[in-house]
């Protein structure tokens, strides 16, 4: 499959005509591109919806860890001769269950996740030495292989997508409540612990789908960056989720289109676009900031200033 891609891209050297209909037609001419666009679109939607909550729940590290725990499963799957996707899904679900059990407010959570993460990468190195096939298998897991995606992979991703979106729709409001205001949500009868575990299981499914597109190492670009952008721009959660999905779609579609006409790898393009957008949003924020600080937070500033003044006026113990 990959050689077919290389052949198509190398020999015919397509270039965009800037006629949208013609270009779309050209982009979708080959089956591998149609698969890539289908899978990429589904993954972008899943990652957008899940990603906003990953950022809101401050679980970026956990999401990243899950992809690497999944990587151990995938390489194990390859080493022992069953499917990499099932290994990936199985291990990331297991990792999700464990991380979910740790709870949201546990202080040592990051250290615990880090320990599991280190161990799973150790497993990877073991599995990869067992599996003495070509190293490109591991490479495609690490960086994604969307242009080599099969019809079966597209089905797996589509089913993951339906499951993810259905569950997210069902738990949307309680999950939002638990993410923003866990103590009140718990008192109001929201099952915060079950939601925490359930959410990580959904992240595991989203990770499994997203790994096919961007790989284990680049998963932040789809699972975290759109969420980070939306969190910084949107006043309502509905708009934030919509922006998240839109941003992921733009990253994936642009990445796929540009890769078709150039020799840059998709993973690089998607991450570069995501990173550039994030930088732009941060810069816009800095440009906007002065007007906001004088307005809304002057209450805190006013409280701090006299305190500092009185501190300065207090004679220091050793002075006399």
């Amino acid at each position, binding site marked *: 499959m990959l050689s077919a891609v290389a052949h198509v891209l190398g020999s015919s050297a397509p270039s965009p005509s800037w006629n949208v209909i013609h270009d779309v037609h050209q982009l979708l001419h080959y089956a591998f591109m149609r698969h890539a666009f289908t899978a990429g679109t589904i993954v972008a939607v899943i990652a957008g919806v899940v990603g906003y909550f990953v950022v809101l729940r401050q679980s970026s590290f956990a999401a990243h860890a899950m992809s690497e725990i999944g990587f151990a499963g995938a390489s194990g799957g390859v080493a022992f001769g069953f499917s990499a996707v099932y290994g990936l899904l199985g291990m990331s679900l297991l990792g999700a269950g464990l991380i979910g059990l740790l709870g949201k407010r546990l202080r040592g959570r990051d250290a615990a996740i880090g320990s599991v993460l280190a161990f799973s990468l150790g497993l990877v190195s073991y599995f990869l030495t067992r599996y003495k096939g070509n190293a490109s298998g591991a490479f495609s897991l690490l960086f994604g292989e969307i242009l080599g995606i099969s019809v079966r992979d597209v089905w797996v991703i589509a089913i993951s997508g339906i499951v993810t979106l259905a569950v997210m729709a069902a738990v949307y409001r309680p999950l939002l409540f638990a993410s923003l205001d866990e103590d*009140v949500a718990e008192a109001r009868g929201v099952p915060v612990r079950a939601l925490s575990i359930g959410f990580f299981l959904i992240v595991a499914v989203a990770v499994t789908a997203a790994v096919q597109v961007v790989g284990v190492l680049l998963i932040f670009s789809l699972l975290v960056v759109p969420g980070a952008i939306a969190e910084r721009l949107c006043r309502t959660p509905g708009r934030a989720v919509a922006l998240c999905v839109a941003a992921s779609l733009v990253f994936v579609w642009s990445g796929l289109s540009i890769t078709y006409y150039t020799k840059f790898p998709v993973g690089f393009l998607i991450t570069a676009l995501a990173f550039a957008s994030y930088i732009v949003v941060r810069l816009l924020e800095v440009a906007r900031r002065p007007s906001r600080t004088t307005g809304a937070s002057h209450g805190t500033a006013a*409280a701090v200033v006299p305190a500092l003044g009185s501190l300065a006026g207090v004679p220091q113990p050793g002075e006399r």
Partner: protein
Amino acid sequence: MANARPADDVGTMSDRPLIALRDVAAGYGRVAVWDDATLDIGRGEFVAVLGPNGSGKTTLLRILLGLLRPTAGTVSILGRPPRRGNPAIGYVPQRRPVDPELRLAGTELVKLGLTGSRWGTGLPGGAARLRRRVDEAVTAVGAEAYADHPIGTLSGGELQRLALAQTIVGDPEILLLDEPLASLDVRNQVGIAHLVATLASSRGMAVMLIAHDVNPLLPVLDRVIYVARGKLTIGRPDDVITSAHLSRLYDANVEVLRDSHGRMFVVGLDDEVAHPHPPTVERPRMDPC
């Protein structure tokens, strides 16, 4: 005057109590926090819960919320046992630092008070009615000016008012507030105390408010619950917060001082209280970090 009659009998409302405790004991595992608590709190009553750190003030609220089972005795909320998620109770936990980057509008927090415990995404049809109820709650706490601002930019007092709006939007009959005055400046402490009192009387809610300092609350309080040294006592502030009463109750040399403005200061309980209950066991899930 302070010793004329048992403090328990003072100030109970005429109708059926909203909160009733009979010989209740609380603890975590085998470690007792306090025991022998008997009290009634009625409609429209404003009660402050006072006492040293780690004495079990939050434990009392957790029992009423159904998050912790009492180790002995019976508790009834509106005539029924406590249960988690009781819509009759509005709860504001101790405030935790808010992510300053969070750009969601304050009204989203208020809205969750009404919709956050319902499954699904909600239907677009209910948006106008929801908006109206949120606006009513925001107006009731006087937060119209900043309710739409990003949560991350709000001050402590502003967040506290929105947290109150979030609880009253569901029309509760009981308000449980855990240290709502902590880390506020004096002006805001008095403002929030008066706001809570106004809400309680206009809506007929019973309020239990944990506080570190009783003074901002003195003008609006009906009764106080004093928790220290494994015991819990309830009564009018003038009866409970006296040197003689507290000294006898806690078998310690407690002194209540008053300054020229009538403010009260309790001396002699804070240092003592650590001994009967080891601090490691006392605060298992009480202080969110």
